[in-house]
């Protein structure tokens, strides 16, 4: 199952994004929208349908290779950005940093974590994994605090540190 993490700064600029494919077995029925529709209807629109239903494993005939990947990516980013509205609504009243699932989109659930300095970590995921996601967010937060202690760090520019990337990936592997 794939997880998408976005780190978004208070100016709504995404600073960091990570797509992580988890190899853990997922419990519960995971039926994709595409598999429930009859096959004759999915063949023509299978690309869009697959993207909207969040399934990344459907491979339609048609445009080669990268076409499918790009569609998915745009939808995922659109979902993450749309959820920012929901986050900001909740942010005013909710006093916790870890906001559990704030938005749903077909099968994707959006969980968020807001740091004290108003940086938002948005995670798109399909399976439910509250505890693992919470621990993951805490570790990303710790790595982020260490990253921004750098006097040359600027919170308007994207995060390009390979060490930060490596640590977030390792943390994802451990918890997701």
């Amino acid at each position, binding site marked *: 199952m794939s997880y998408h993490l976005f780190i978004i700064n208070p100016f709504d600029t995404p600073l960091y994004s990570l797509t992580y494919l988890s190899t853990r077995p997922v419990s519960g029925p995971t039926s994709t929208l595409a598999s429930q529709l009859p096959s004759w209807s999915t063949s023509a629109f299978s690309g869009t349908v697959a993207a909207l239903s969040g399934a990344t494993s459907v491979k339609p005939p048609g445009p080669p290779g990268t076409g499918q990947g790009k569609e998915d990516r745009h939808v995922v980013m659109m979902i993450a950005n749309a959820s920012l509205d929901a986050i900001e609504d909740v*942010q*005013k*009243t*909710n*006093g*916790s*940093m*870890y906001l559990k699932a704030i938005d749903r989109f077909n099968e994707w659930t959006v969980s968020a974590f*807001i*740091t*004290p*300095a*108003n940086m938002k970590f948005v995670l798109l995921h399909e399976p439910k994994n509250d505890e693992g996601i919470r621990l993951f967010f*805490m570790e990303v*937060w*710790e*790595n*982020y*605090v*260490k990253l*921004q*202690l*750098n*006097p040359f760090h600027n*919170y308007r520019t994207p995060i390009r540190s390979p*060490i*930060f990337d490596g*640590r977030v990936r390792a943390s994802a592997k451990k918890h997701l």
Partner: protein
Amino acid sequence: MAYNNVHPRLSVFSTGSQSSLDYIPTAGTPPPGSGGRQSATPIPKAGPSKGIYDRPLNKTRNAEVSAAAYAFLFSEMIQYTQKRVHGIGDLEKRLSLLGYRIGTRTLELMMWRNEGASKNPKRETRLLPVLYVVHTQLWKAIFGKTADAIEKSVENDDEYMIIDNDPPITKYISIPKEMSQLSCSALTAGIVEALLDGLGFPARVTAHSVPKEGFPLRTTILIKLDRSVMEREEALK
């Protein structure tokens, strides 16, 4: 130096006396009575390098910086800024900007140290708790003591004041008579402004010197909150 009978496990940097050849160094223990830095300490292995990501954040939690070293650094900062500005207002603005950069980092670090271990970390969303955070936790984290008073202005309902009787950072600064409006606590004001901004309470924060008998360096940090904050507070009441 007798290269022929140098013990194979002795460091090649060793210029110790002949007697040190008798001593077989075990890892990490310096040989007794050998000279200074060139004694037979083992060459550090090229292991994984310790970057900032490996250091635990709580390591320097209670560490203190010597006031003298800090005063030195601060005086350099002020001199640097003073050369590049045309007036007191500009100088205070620049110091405030430097303080802002410190404040964003301090906010995250302070909150992480306070909440990083808890199961459900919380942020403050209401005004009064946030002001208390500034008054107690921020001052404790930076200066090691809490601020002396927190007051609400009677004329304007969007103004609050944090009073420090003896701000440590300006302790060794003497301000000439013609610049008596200047308060180098503008740095502290910048830190407070960054903290309020981060928590979602945009404000204009300035520092003013209000000497009282017994406390010649008494400083007030004046916080003037944005309209949007006051409206939000009204709505949430």
